[in-house]
């Protein structure tokens, strides 16, 4: 049995229905425990004070925000090449999640930047390219909403996703180029120091384990949400198809 059979909505619904409760439960457990650990049980950093605790949300959210786009890219390609509806719907389902994660990364970053850099926002290359990623998500979702025929919308958003990926990489590069040589003192203060070499191994591990758990939790949450939302999209399409047939007969 080939992998593609899961592109059949019925099969997908059966499998995802079985998996979903477990994934959700695991996601809930790991996120709650990771954030509890991170918020209550980690010490303050000697340089950054308690703000270092933001890392347990900021980094996983940023990671998921990027990976959600990557998943959209893959599922869009599957739709373009093999025209499996579930694939297109999964892409549609993951966009809002990616967008919210981008938003979270931006907000936590901004809140973190206020004490660290003395400003809510700086035009640092990494922040800027994230902002642009957020715009890509917005445009992608707006296009899905605006086109009424679902197959057409799937085609268009897939093309947009492919072209958009190229341009997102280009703009990441461009933005790096653009802010080069400014050497804002602020952007030098990275927390790499915390997990990196110039602090003691011991301290690093204190932050590393809850961070890893949190990343796992966010990843599971992403999977659970994608499954749930894809199931909803499939049901919606089925309902539209049934209603249409009702009208016909």
């Amino acid at each position, binding site marked *: 049995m080939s992998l593609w059979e899961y592109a059949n909505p019925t099969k997908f619904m059966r499998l995802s229905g079985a998996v979903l409760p477990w994934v959700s439960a695991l996601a809930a457990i790991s996120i709650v425990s990771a954030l509890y650990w991170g918020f209550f049980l980690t010490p303050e950093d000697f340089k950054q004070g308690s703000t270092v605790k933001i890392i347990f949300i900021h980094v996983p959210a940023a990671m998921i925000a990027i990976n959600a786009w990557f998943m959209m890219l893959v599922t869009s390609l599957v739709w373009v090449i093999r025209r499996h509806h579930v694939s297109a719907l999964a892409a549609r389902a993951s966009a809002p999640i990616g967008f919210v994660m981008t938003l979270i990364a931006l907000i936590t970053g901004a809140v973190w930047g206020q004490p660290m850099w003395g400003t809510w926002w700086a035009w640092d290359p990494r922040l800027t390219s994230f902002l*642009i990623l957020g*715009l*890509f998500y*917005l*445009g992608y979702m*707006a*296009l899905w909403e*605006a*086109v009424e*025929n679902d*197959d*057409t919308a799937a*085609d*268009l958003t897939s*093309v*947009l996703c*492919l*072209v*958009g990926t190229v*341009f*997102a990489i*280009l*703009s990441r*590069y*461009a*933005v790096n*180029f*653009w802010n080069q*040589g400014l050497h804002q003192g602020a952007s030098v203060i990275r927390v790499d120091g915390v997990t990196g070499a110039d602090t003691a191994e011991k301290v690093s591990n204190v932050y590393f384990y809850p961070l890893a758990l949190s990343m796992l939790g966010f990843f599971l949450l992403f999977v659970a949400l994608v499954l749930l939302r894809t199931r909803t999209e499939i049901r919606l399409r089925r309902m539209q198809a049934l209603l249409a047939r009702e009208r016909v007969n």
Partner: protein
Amino acid sequence: MISLLIRDLRIATRAGGGAGLGLAFFLMVVILVPLGVGPETQLLARIAPGILWVGALLACLLTLDRIFALDFEDGTLDALVCAPVPLSGVVLVKSIAHWLVTGLPLTLISPLLGVLLNLPAEGYLWLMASLLPGTLSLSVIGAFGAALTVGVRRGGLLLSLLVLPLYVPTLVFGAECASSLMNFKDPLAPFIFLIVITLGALAFLPMAGAAALRANLR
């Protein structure tokens, strides 16, 4: 193909066709910014290349929806799809027509508007040099966006939303190139990137645009 180009240019230059309106908009952004920001010469000179590039980008953006929407509404696009011409060629020709009507005149007039913003003399050459290929890539990228939104009624603003992030690399390299001499940097590197982006866009985006058009005509 040539006849399509000629027709597009002819329509654009007829009454209500929109040639020159991009130009006028460009002019007005450049006038509005001093009104909003205040009249200090120093400040204006600093931001001049950036504002000129943003103005050019917006002027281009505003005229994009004309590329396909009119042809879609009156059935011309349907007929062109049935005609024995490659659709990606149609997209390419139409984006070039858009550039000839919008980007090119805008580039030619930019030194004049630089004066309004107190752009120092050494900035003019690279401003124009960056706008020339830059606006072409804006037109090509924009035509792709216009093809994506052609089925959406009055999709002008959705179009802006889709196209603006795609414009970021062009804008960054273009503005960087235009302002580099003023900042004592080398304008060549961003210029080369600009050329590469333009050529890449010319090579691949018409195909993507044709695919989008086909999907939209269903």
